[in-house]
């Protein structure tokens, strides 16, 4: 029977790509009294539920979704985390 999985895809800018958002946040932190923070990078965190026969088939679908829709590999990397959904409705 099909299982439900919770998925988190983190999309981040590839190393070496300028991250104007991250840099702007970082520059604003000292004035707020936060001196000890560096290397700020801003990415996306996309969460969804997927139905699949097993974890490995879930993963392969998610990988496809990442490649085709969620990220552009020219500038972005993705990291996928899949966990079995606790029972109950997704919403």
């Amino acid at each position, binding site marked *: 029977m099909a299982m439900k999985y919770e998925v988190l895809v983190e999309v981040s800018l590839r190393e070496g790509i300028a991250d*104007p*958002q991250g840099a*702007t946040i970082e*520059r*604003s932190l*000292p*004035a*707020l009294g936060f001196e000890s923070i560096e290397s700020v990078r*801003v990415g996306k965190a996309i969460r969804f539920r997927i139905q699949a026969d097993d974890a490995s088939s879930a993963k392969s679908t998610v990988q496809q979704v990442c490649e085709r829709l969620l990220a552009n590999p020219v500038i972005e990397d993705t990291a996928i985390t899949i966990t079995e959904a606790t029972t109950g409705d997704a919403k």
Partner: protein
Amino acid sequence: MASLLSKGRVASPFVKPLAQGREGSPKLQIVVGIVVFPGSNCEHDVVESLGSLDAKAQLLWHSQADLQNSRAIVLPGGFAHGDYLRPGAIAKFSNIMNSVVEFARAGGPVLGICNGFQILTEVGLLPGALQKNRGLRFICEMSQVVVSTANSSASRQLAQGAQLSIPINHFEGNFTCSHDTLEQLQQEDRIVFRYLNNPNGSVDDIAGITNETRNVVGMMPHPERACDPMLGSSDGIQVLASLLEAAQ
């Protein structure tokens, strides 16, 4: 280099008033302070439109705290700090915002236009938040707005129910708030402007709201872009004129 929000450095780059009202005006000119953040871009447009109303405008640099005796404050449109993170998220920490909050709490008229509206919600002078437009697209077009209450510093010269043509120009203008906040806004008659054809998904068609004391108004449409018939509408004049009246 000092950081973006450094305190107490450099006097305003705009110490001199940039717009003068028409000469020979008998009335005492009201001085309106227009806050400029790095990334603001509508400040000169507001100066120009206020100038056509005989008001005097002065630009106030965000890093200074002094409002320079301004009788009303406008937070103009644009992309303060690039709108990075969230519109208004970084701007709210500027030195000048403490003074603006104080000024507002003391009853001074404050108008936030577009990005200015976003900053006012971030800093807590107005409730709610402005999310991305429903259609996930930037929208620049003429919008039709209806005056929902004449009881605010930006609508006191307008009649309730009046319909105005005022352009909108935003990506994040989708007004969102909790159910309780919405009820409160409705019950206290604090919704100032509503869209006739909701362009962005705002709850209850909200285009502009006011605070409890009705001196602070935030609106997504740009009244300064509607002050000249050659640009397609002059309906924005009454909004700015209301602000000037409130400042008297």
